[in-house]
């Protein structure tokens, strides 16, 4: 069997098997995990340049469809399937209502998206991915809310898909072909002549990608959907599915490079606009995140905030910008996966998603706590963990272009990410442990293996970034740009400086050893229970102090609300709501016509005929 085809067929077969054996939960989970693993094995069979084409007779037209492996697609495939293996392995012990067969359908669709050479296959796969994930979200814990989340997501996805479909038809009408490559080169060709046409068509596609990645102003569905999706699916949703948009952007971004388009600060202005969409997304996500009390929603905001970073970087479409963006896409997948997997582990143990009801879990789940800690350190961009290198490169890419306002905004978003990460860290893991969690236990052995693996990966790719940067360099090369110089697996080469991550790692390790040595050498300490705490001379028992009362995590950044109030007044959510309401109103008005009274129908028919005749007469 052709291994390109196997990447599509194996998940579908697995999906069918999982659907049949749905009743036996463990078997279904096992099938899901094994299918992901087998699909991953087929990845070793394929190499860059592999191609497979077939012809489809459709309405008398002979359409050429195909699959092709480019450096970008193989990078995406490895990334997403490997993460899927980790997640499905973790899910073997997870009890949320995640349907394995839908996940496998998503996998097949995602493989097709990354390999498709024609717009028909791309669109079909896009829809398959969209619908299987929508159905998945219906299985959330809270029925009413998860239905709302799924429908919100469905509406936005459908909007995006329509937009893309119109784009596809316009494009194929112009060129007479559905091949992605010839369409893009055609657009490049006519860009100088009809820039507005090209931009119009491309923005139709970009709407779909922006919806999928949750880019401002289409970010509103993200918190609703992530917040209500089944726990076991959220990591996939935020780590993997948000990257489809990035892949889509990269199809059309090469358009403006080398073309004669008016530029702003040395950057073609469509790219400049896209960069601003990215920067605003990054800031909006960070600011909204640190006001959340629901932990899944908090990280939903954080997720699209990071997508804003990625978009801003790839929009530059310079070697360093593209490298930084792809690198951040990888790192985001990794640290977001670690964060979300630990978060759902905690949620499954404590049974709530409200952070103000948690606290002090570190005493009960030490390994989960450590994994989460390294995850947020990476997300905050702290060396030597994965996540530092890409943020560092993004800043350099932005600075080298002289984009002062966008850079400061991104820096602000990066610091604000510190705020929400610390808030989640404190509210979930630190502080006072409530007595109702006395029986909470650490995750099962399977969960422990997953967490250790993620912990290792976060450190490994932090200190040896070359393993990711090498494939990224070939992606950069395939886009016709000059890749950044490489000098070994431990180096990250930026625009202004280069860094040896191993030497940083060694320095940090040495100072930590010194720190622990000092800790051991100097005076002794004795451990006290958490109740033994400074209470300003009061005796806690006198006023019935409970650990919950002594935990400050609700409205953690309350003073900031006042400063940010003007920005929060802008409600994009409200815009979509108003749009929905007016659609409903028009629908109601149209419904008024269909009263069931035959007389009115007759009038309508006659009126329609008259209009039809007059219109025909005028036209001819």
């Amino acid at each position, binding site marked *: 069997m052709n291994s390109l085809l196997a990447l599509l067929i194996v998940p579908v077969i697995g999906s069918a098997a999982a659907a049949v054996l749905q009743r036996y939960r463990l078997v279904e989970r096992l099938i899901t995990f094994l299918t992901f693993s087998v699909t991953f094995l087929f990845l070793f069979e394929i190499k860059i340049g592999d191609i497979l084409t077939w012809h489809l007779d459709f309405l008398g037209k002979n359409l050429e469809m195909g699959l092709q492996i480019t450096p970008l697609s193989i990078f995406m495939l490895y990334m997403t399937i490997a993460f899927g293996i980790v997640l499905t392995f973790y899910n073997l012990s997870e009890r949320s209502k995640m349907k394995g067969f839908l996940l496998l359908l998503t996998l097949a669709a995602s493989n097709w998206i990354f390999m498709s050479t024609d717009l028909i296959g791309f669109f079909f796969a896009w829809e398959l991915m969209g619908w299987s994930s929508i159905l998945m979200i219906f299985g959330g814990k809270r029925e009413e809310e998860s239905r709302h989340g799924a429908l919100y997501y469905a509406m936005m996805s459908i909007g995006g898909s329509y937009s893309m479909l119109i784009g596809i038809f316009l494009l194929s009408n112009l060129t007479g072909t559905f091949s992605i490559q010839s369409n893009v080169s055609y657009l490049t060709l006519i860009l100088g002549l009809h820039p507005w046409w090209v931009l119009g068509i491309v923005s139709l596609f970009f709407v779909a990608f922006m919806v999928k990645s949750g880019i401002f102003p289409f970010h509103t569905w993200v918190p609703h959907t992530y917040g209500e999706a089944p726990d076991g699916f959220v990591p996939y949703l935020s780590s993997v599915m948000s990257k489809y948009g990035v892949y889509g952007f990269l199809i059309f971004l090469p358009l403006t490079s080398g073309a004669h388009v008016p530029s702003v600060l040395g950057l073609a202005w469509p790219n400049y606009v896209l960069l601003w969409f990215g920067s605003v997304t990054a800031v909006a996500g960070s600011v909204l995140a640190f006001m959340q009390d629901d932990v899944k929603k908090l990280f939903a905001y954080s997720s699209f905030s990071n997508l804003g970073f990625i978009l801003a970087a790839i929009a530059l479409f310079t070697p360093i910008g593209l490298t930084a963006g792809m690198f951040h896409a990888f790192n985001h997948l990794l640290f977001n996966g670690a964060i979300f997997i630990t978060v759902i582990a905690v949620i499954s143990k404590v049974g709530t998603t409200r952070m103000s009801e948690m606290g002090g879990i570190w005493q009960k789940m030490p390994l989960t706590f450590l994994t989460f800690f390294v995850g947020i350190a990476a997300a905050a961009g702290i060396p030597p963990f994965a996540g530092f290198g890409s943020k560092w490169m993004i800043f350099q890419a932005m600075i080298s272009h002289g984009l002062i306002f966008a850079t400061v905004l991104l820096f602000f978003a990066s610091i604000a990410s510190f705020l929400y990460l610390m808030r989640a860290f404190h509210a979930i893991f630190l502080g006072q442990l409530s007595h109702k969690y006395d029986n909470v236990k650490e995750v099962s052995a399977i969960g422990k293996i997953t967490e250790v693996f993620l912990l290792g990966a976060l450190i490994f790719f932090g200190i040896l970034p070359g393993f990711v940067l090498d494939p990224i360099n070939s992606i950069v090369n395939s886009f016709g740009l000059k890749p950044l110089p490489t000098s070994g697996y431990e180096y990250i080469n930026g625009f202004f400086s280069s860094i040896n991550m191993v030497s940083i790692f060694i320095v940090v390790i040495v100072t930590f050893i010194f720190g622990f040595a000092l800790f051991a050498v100097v005076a002794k300490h004795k451990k006290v229970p958490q109740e033994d705490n400074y209470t300003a001379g009061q005796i806690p028992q006198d006023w019935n102090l409970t650990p919950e009362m002594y*935990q400050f995590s609700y409205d953690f950044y309350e003073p900031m609300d006042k400063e940010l109030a003007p920005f929060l007044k802008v409600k994009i959510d409200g815009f979509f709501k108003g749009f929905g309401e007016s659609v409903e109103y028009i629908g109601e008005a149209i419904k008024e016509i269909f009263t069931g009274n035959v007389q009115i129908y007759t009038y309508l028919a006659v009126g329609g005929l008259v209009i039809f005749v007059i219109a025909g007469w005028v036209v001819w």
Partner: protein
Amino acid sequence: MVIVEFLIKLSQGFGIGALALATGLLFGGIGRKIMARIQRRYGPPFTQNFMDLFKLLSKGSVSHGWAFDLGLVAGFAPMLAALMFLPIGPFTLLPSDSSLIMIVYLMMMAYLGMAMGVLASGNPNSAIGMSRALMLMVGYEVPFAAVIFSVYLFSKTGYLTQIVTQQAGGFMNWNIVKMPLGFLATEIALQGMLGEKPFDQAIAPAEIASGPMVELGGKYLGFGMIQHSVGLFLETGIVVDLFLGGAPNFWIFIAKQFVLYFIVILVDAILPRLRIHEATSFFWKLPLFLGILQAVIVIIQGGVLNV
């Protein structure tokens, strides 16, 4: 050979750490003395901070569990790590990695570690203090980002070592002359970074019981003191390297650092504490305006790099 080299670097690293710690403690002591004289007190001897540290490290104390211990160690270890990349006078231990943004992020790891330790203690005062510290950080880091931006574009490099060498050859080559607005923004941001009045909301003595430090005692408070002293050395050192042209030798370097710290102390002596949201939004007004203005001037002068 590699091992010998490593051992040499290790011993040099120890030396740098000890020097930075001693300098930071000395600055702290002198600062207390100056403050006392301004308030017409006699004040403690300027070696008081050394005595305090030795006392603290030798006293038994209570721990709130291993996350508390780990957090406090992680509070000062990365600070020392960041120090190894700082050009101190003519000497840099690891010059090939002295990227400015990397140092700034490494310092943040220390804050993250410290936050983890004090929050693990489960005292709401430390949680309030930490939330204030973070809110203040989102204030002062933004103008500082604009300054980093200006310096990067102006010097066309990200290495602190190269930024220093570019300023060689006298006062007129210093970045303070070439980028005065950026220096002003940094100086204000420095006040916030060091947590001195009017930006001492996180500690806020007599309001939230010293905030993050409320549960610290004995060696843990000692570790906090190490973090603060090394942080003081590091932050003033970065500003010296960025704007005051580094230094030909260690003593001049310290002297320049002290000038910066002296300004901080004087401001600290005369201003009251702001409320936290006022402090944060203050950084988004004047300092940010100065920083961005400086960046715009740099862009107009030097043009954007050709990418």
